[in-house]
């Protein structure tokens, strides 16, 4: 498709600007022409062409509303339409962040209740909704850990992170000045307890654990892990991006986690928007409450307001109060499902993952053959060795079958990883036809490997030259 710049023609526009109802004047004179720009190189398109451009672009994009999207670690569940609608209520969209508390009681109540609900579901003492995404929540959490030790007068340099962890975990730790030490996984995909014991010193601030981890496996020795960390005065950080595996079934706070971040755009069904906005609330145990970002909502005389008076706070990690409108959707989700509904979501998510795991086990290698939680991780090694078909080929071929591919090549500890997260909103029929496609591709890989390697063939473009893209980066269109 042509770029919006390529269909631009001088003199056209979509949006007009009202005539001024106040006196106009020469702005160059008034402001000083040195402050003014000489050009304004934006596209010029009529409304019909703009709408066609973006509408047709949308049709070159795959979303949950078109079909199954089993992208592991991303919890691509269905986004209920009613949540979208209520989030568009003018009362929610129209308020300025500096509206006085009296005018914002609805929003403040929603924020306060949301924090309380999350505390209840996850067993934490307090939550902040300020972080804008999961990684931002991690950063906030790690900052609080840093502050906690600062307050204690301890200089702990290290954060332990399992080899299976999501890349944001080490990156967030590093962005906070910590040294990252990798913790090995054991043969059953859990924490290697001996290795942990050997690494755990008083120089270790925290272990960042994802539980269930990125293999979709629950840490059976979690009690032991927490004990090892806590005994040495360390903190246990939980990456809650996988909360769709346990909400309503077990609470991180009860398991010994001191800090946990959530991804509302995963577990709480707010749409991911093609890469955001997300929302990454962080919950903490009692010992860390004082370090939460400011401002925090407080209630007095039955009225809510913002307060910044928390001297030990790490400060702010974002302007204003977070991705408020995303939180509205997550709040709506919690209210409409209720406690039982949240639990059922978890149960069905785990059921679906185990079902896929069992059906596909004969066709793809399953490196850790045990009950999984909300996702299961296969390996494409068999296909590689048998016919040179790689996980990426299998992924691309799934597109031709009408599916979004699973997450691939992650977690890094599984060779040729294929990470499938079906979520609870998919029907058995969908899982069955998806498994049929996976099985058919396994057969194709044997019988017609070159066909698989050519996939996808049903898309507007075939496989793209990523090497070229990185070698000669073109990230900004230039008039030629």
């Amino acid at each position, binding site marked *: 498709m042509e770029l919006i710049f390529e269909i631009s023609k001088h003199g056209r526009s*979509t*949006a007009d600007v*009202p005539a*001024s109802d106040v006196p106009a*004047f020469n702005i160059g004179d008034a402001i000083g022409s040195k402050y003014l720009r*000489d050009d*304004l190189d*934006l*596209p010029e398109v009529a409304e019909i062409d703009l709408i066609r451009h973006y509408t047709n*672009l949308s*049709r070159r994009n795959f979303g*949950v509303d078109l079909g199954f999207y089993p*992208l592991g670690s991303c919890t691509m569940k269905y*986004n*209920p339409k009613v949540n979208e609608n209520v989030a568009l209520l003018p*009362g*929610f969209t*129209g308020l*300025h962040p500096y*509206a*006085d508390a009296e005018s914002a*009681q609805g929003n403040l*109540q929603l924020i306060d209740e949301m924090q309380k609900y999350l505390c209840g579901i996850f067993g934490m003492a307090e939550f902040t909704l300020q972080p804008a995404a999961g990684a931002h929540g991690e950063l906030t959490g*790690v900052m609080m850990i840093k502050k906690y030790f600062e307050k204690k007068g301890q200089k702990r340099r290290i954060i332990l992170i399992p080899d299976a962890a999501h*890349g944001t975990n080490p*990156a967030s730790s590093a*962005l906070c*000045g910590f040294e990252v030490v990798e913790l090995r996984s054991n043969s059953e995909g859990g924490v290697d307890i001996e290795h942990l014991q050997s690494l755990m010193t008083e120089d270790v601030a925290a272990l960042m654990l994802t539980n269930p981890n990125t293999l979709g496996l629950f840490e059976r020795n979690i009690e032991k892990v927490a004990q090892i960390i806590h005994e040495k005065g360390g903190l246990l950080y939980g990456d809650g991006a996988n909360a769709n595996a346990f909400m309503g079934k*077990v609470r991180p706070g*009860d398991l010994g986690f001191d800090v946990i971040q959530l991804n509302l755009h995963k577990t709480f*069904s707010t*749409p*991911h*928007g*093609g890469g955001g*906005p997300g929302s990454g609330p962080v919950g903490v145990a009692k010992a860390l409450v004082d370090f939460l970002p400011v401002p925090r909502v407080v209630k007095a005389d039955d009225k809510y307001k913002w307060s910044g008076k928390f001297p030990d706070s*790490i*400060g*702010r990690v974002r*302007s*204003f*109060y*977070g991705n*408020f*409108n995303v939180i*509205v959707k997550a709040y709506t989700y919690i209210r*409409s499902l209720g*406690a039982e509904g949240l639990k059922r979501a978890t149960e069905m998510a785990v*059921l679906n993952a185990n*079902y896929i795991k069992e059906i596909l086990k004969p066709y793809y290698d399953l490196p850790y053959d045990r009950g999984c939680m909300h996702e299961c991780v296969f390996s494409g090694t068999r296909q590689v060795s048998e016919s040179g078909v790689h996980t990426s080929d299998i992924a691309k071929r799934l597109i031709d079958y009408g599916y*979004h591919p699973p997450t691939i090549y992650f977690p890094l500890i599984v060779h040729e990883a294929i990470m499938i997260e079906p979520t609870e909103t998919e029907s*058995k029929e969908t899982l069955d036809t998806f498994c049929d496609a996976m099985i058919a591709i396994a057969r194709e890989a044997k019988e017609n490997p070159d066909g698989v390697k050519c996939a*996808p063939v049903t898309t507007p*473009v075939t*496989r*793209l030259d*990523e090497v070229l893209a*990185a070698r000669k980066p*073109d*990230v900004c269109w230039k008039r030629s």
Partner: protein
Amino acid sequence: MDYCPHTSEDIEQMQAAIGVAGIDELFADIPEKFRLKQMPDIPAALSEQETVSVMSDLAGKNKLPQFTLTGAGAYHHFIPAVVGHITGRAEFYTAYTPYQAEISQGLLQAIYEYQTMIAHLTGTEIANASMYDGASAMAEAAVLCAKMSGRNKIIVARSVHPEYRQVLRTYSWANGYTVVELPYAPSGQIDLESLQRKLDDQVAAVLVQSPNFFGVIEDIAPVADAVHNKGALLVAGFTDGTSLGILKPAGAAGADFVVGEGQSFGNPLNYGGPYLGIFAAKEKFMRRIPGRLVGATVDKNGRRGFVLTLQTREQHIRREKATSNICSNEALCALAAGVYLAALGKNLKRLSELNIYKTQYLKNKLLGLAGWKEVFSSPVYNEFVLRCPDSKKVNEKLKNEGITGGYDLQKNYPELENSLLFCATEMISKEDMDKVADILKR
């Protein structure tokens, strides 16, 4: 509500296929003692009809003003109808990050176009696919400068948005960097002499905003020279993005990074979020900047296509050595911004002009009131600071008429007593402004 499609037969069949007798067996790995017995205290499930009613009641507890004279980092602009129609396309908003390029060309191309528009608009050469918001974009730019230079001091103008400075302090503290604040001159612009004095070879970056928090337009070029002379980098922010429709962008005046809040471009006020951080830079920093980048390339048949590129900067490849930890950004807000900018096109300049006219009108009206005085002498875009006899009373009077007044600067600038920061966008009519003056005359 319940969004799980399974019937009880489905569940039975699936349990049989898995080989378990009940759902609880699937959770066997959770040590018995931790399994949740008592559900957390959450109100009972709601039907869709009840959900709408509960949420409408909550939204109804907010009071929308007739209009607002506060900007201060979030701006009330008209959003053309096309924006919502496009961001409401399910194919866009129900997608994940476009990792699988072949079925994500829509979003990839739209973001590539957004990057291009932002680079043009900011006078830089490249822009990423968005950051969380203006404040975190600025903080990440500062951290990046420190990392690249090995220096550990960051100078930030006091005329930068107070919350941006707070975020900067948090990020800098976490990384062990020192933040030094730079005073403003009586003109409202930064004190260039003070800058010269503070610049030493430990300074990694200087952070300014133009228009700054007081609405005042900074003279970027001499600042850039001073900064570059000491081997530091200049990070320039802005307040209201629509100012870029008429003001010379900091990139064109020598800034190395232009960062700021993109909310003005087609995103509602939303009580503060979601917004989007604009992050633009000189091309030479391309392989160091945080965040996603979409690049053009070709497919096997030579057709143009788009991919996420230079991913080796990012956390999922480089892990603790990544240039940032950012993963999800604000893609849909960036899409909105792209649609907004494409919709306005060159009319963005006319919109900027209109904002300036309105602002001038409001300023004159208010200066006509007894005891009101201008605080800064430099030219402004659509915000300005006035000192009045009693700022609290002013806002109180306006509030009683359903109008949100100015931002009281004393909270953040104790020296600016009774000084209000006012903003007038195209959403404020002459009539509104006349009314404001009338109310305040009483």
